[in-house]
């Protein structure tokens, strides 16, 4: 057997994917620990450079969404924070817009590839 293809049982199991790697063997009904962590602090959208937050993160769900309150359709007046679904994530994959008028939250969960993920420090 080619040594470079030999894996320990734990390595082989972890290769099944992130659930296995991060949480080990689970059975149906197991409740996994929460792994979400903060990535970028909550800041005012107006304090970030224009275009820093890509429009794709708020166009369809906020500006063009007629099902939400009028105040929520103006992300330029919102605060935004970024989070990671797991500490191992290389970049934020969760963005939360906070409407400063009504305090509602609008979450964006980025699950794909090939997209830009804005990050920032305290402004």
């Amino acid at each position, binding site marked *: 057997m080619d040594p470079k293809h030999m894996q320990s049982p734990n390595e082989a199991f972890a290769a099944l*994917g*992130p*659930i296995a790697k991060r949480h080990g063997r689970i*059975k149906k009904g197991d409740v996994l620990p929460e792994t979400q962590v903060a990535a970028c602090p909550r800041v005012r959208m107006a304090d970030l450079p224009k275009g820093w937050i890509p429009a*794709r993160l708020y166009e*369809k*769900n906020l500006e063009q*969404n007629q*099902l939400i309150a009028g105040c929520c359709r103006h992300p330029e007046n919102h605060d935004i924070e970024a989070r990671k679904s797991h500490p191992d994530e290389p970049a934020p994959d969760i963005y939360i817009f906070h409407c400063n008028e009504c305090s509602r939250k609008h979450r964006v*969960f980025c699950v794909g590839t090939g997209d830009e993920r804005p990050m920032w420090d305290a402004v």
Partner: protein
Amino acid sequence: MATYTKYEHTIEALLNAEVDAFGTTNTWKVAIHTDAPVVGTDDELADLTQIAGNNGYTTGGEDVQNDGTRAAGTVTVACQDVVWTASGGNLGSSTTGRYFAVHDDTSTTDILICDHDYGATFTVASGETMTWNTGASLFTAA
């Protein structure tokens, strides 16, 4: 990006022509569920516990407008954003939604494709939104 979790049965379903990832022939949907996916035994949407079908959530999830295209030897599956807006109460009357499962809604048994973990339970209160965003692509296969 949120880490892609592959259901073990998916590759068999793809190679057995039970699901179709190329073009737009088959409709894929994304559903919200509360239970952690067990990739070795969960094969179909019915194996998962979705949030309730009310207050802006439809049981079975929403169409992701999937489109598989090929360049050279790589197929890229792109999808459109899905936006859930809660109305009349919490989305799905839920405070324990956490996972997002993509399934082939055209397949006979809603075969599962992949899953993503939000990392925490969430509550989408009335007037709030949850957006599932795939960026340039959901996955590539070569």
